């Protein structure tokens, strides 16, 4: 980093302003916190139940995102096929679509009054499986794009060389391509997990807001905020989510993502 590359003061001033936009809400949240009752808020039965749902839903959604997203990323990065731009657009559209629309679309596909709903008897609405699916759909694009980016920057020579040493396609993928993509998969999984943990719109639209099965922490916050008696809990749970997110992001970054 040379001094000549240092941005001019005007640019730095705007950058500083940008940082403030992120810092002020966090400081305000901390200032609003009901510090004396914080721990009791954390251990309130509703919070514990929502926390449990959030952990299960976000981890299951991340697992689903990895299992389905990694093969998709490989196909998009290393293959040319007809309709590839369309496929990529469809996979990544949840990034720009309002989550509530994703929720409506999921209801149309897997709700009670659909073919799927009739075949299964209930459909996925108001079930934890529905909450997991909603979170997975909005989270997977983050994983696919991250892994695809890693794959594009990987030297194709490694796989070619493995082939000249006799390794058949599946062995090449498992022993060479996949391990080389590991940093991207981990980074993508962390992003997907963070997105799944914060998921709100698609979940409430598709899976509903049932305590113990589909009410995640963000849903509990929204619900608590509506009632003046429980507004303190909304702030407390928000702080809890902030702490969890920051802790996980910081520890995982340092441990698993190699610095370039």
């Amino acid at each position, binding site marked *: 980093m040379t001094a000549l590359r240092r941005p001019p003061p005007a640019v730095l001033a705007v950058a500083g302003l940008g940082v403030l936009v992120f810092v002020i809400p966090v400081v305000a949240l901390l200032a609003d916190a009901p510090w004396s009752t914080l721990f009791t808020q954390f251990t309130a039965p509703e919070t514990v139940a929502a926390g449990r749902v959030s952990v299960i839903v976000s981890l299951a959604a991340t697992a689903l995102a990895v299992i389905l997203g990694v093969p998709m990323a490989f196909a998009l990065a290393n293959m040319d096929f007809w309709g590839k731009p369309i496929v990529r657009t469809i996979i990544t559209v949840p990034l720009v679509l309002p989550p509530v629309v994703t929720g409506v679309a999921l209801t149309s596909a897997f709700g009670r009054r659909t073919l799927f709903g009739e075949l299964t008897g209930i459909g996925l609405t108001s079930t934890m499986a529905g909450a997991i699916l909603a979170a997975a759909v909005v989270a997977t694009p983050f994983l696919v794009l991250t892994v695809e980016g890693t794959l594009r920057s990987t030297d194709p*020579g490694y796989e*070619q*060389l493995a*082939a*000249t*040493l*006799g*390794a*058949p396609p599946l062995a090449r993928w498992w022993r*060479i391509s996949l391990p080389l993509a590991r940093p991207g998969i981990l980074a993508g999984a962390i992003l997907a997990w963070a997105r799944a943990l914060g998921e709100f719109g698609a979940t409430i639209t598709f899976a509903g807001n049932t305590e113990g099965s589909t009410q995640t922490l963000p849903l509990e916050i929204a619900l608590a905020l509506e009632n003046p008696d429980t507004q303190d809990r909304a702030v407390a749970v928000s702080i809890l989510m902030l702490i969890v997110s920051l802790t996980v992001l910081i520890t995982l970054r340092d441990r698993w993502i190699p610095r370039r």
Partner: protein
Amino acid sequence: MNPGLEANVKAGVAAFSLAAVLTAGTGTTVAVVGPNGSGKTTLLNVLAGVVPLSGGEIVVNGTVWDRPADGIRLTPEQRDLALVPQNALLFPHFTVVDNVAFGLRYRDRGLSRRVQRDQALAALEAAGLDHLADRKPNQLSGGQRQRVAIARAVVTRPSLLLLDEPLSNVDAANRHQLRETIDQLRPPGQIQIVVTHGRLHASTADQVVALDHGRVVATGTAEELGRQRKIGWLRDMLAPTD
């Protein structure tokens, strides 16, 4: 069946086109020389099956490896060969010994893991690197990586060994040892195709093929090509220095 390599290759990579004829008897070494961008590496990639032929054929010891006209094209893993790329390309997540053992697992399926490792260690020893067996590639110098890449290829004892400037990153002191390693692990009948910039490697080859702009411009022994008067760069490269 005709033993040896008979290749008449036509291939295009982006705007570059390669059209070359190459023959080599069993047990012989062919040095491929030429200026940068003359198609040397593409020729190796075509033989390895990494770059497809658009015309012509590759026949090795009577087996057709590639013949687009008949729809025959063996994948790289189906060809009895090994390749030493110019930039080593050691698998970064494997240790040195696991890199060397990689091909044994697929080329010689009867071997137990233990024997694979022993053979890999023996090849490393021959390359003078057995003390680095458990290191990761990023802990090695460029020259050491190149030597591991050579051990990884020669240990599988292929019928066709392709080497892309194998000694370019290796200092003079180690070149001799490395040449010996390549020879020591050379099974009877192995054909070696060596892309080289150096006179040393070219002069010990049975035959030198000079490429320019994707075409063969001269073929002969190093001595013959060092004496010819038509192609200046080739004479400069191969003419005896003393």
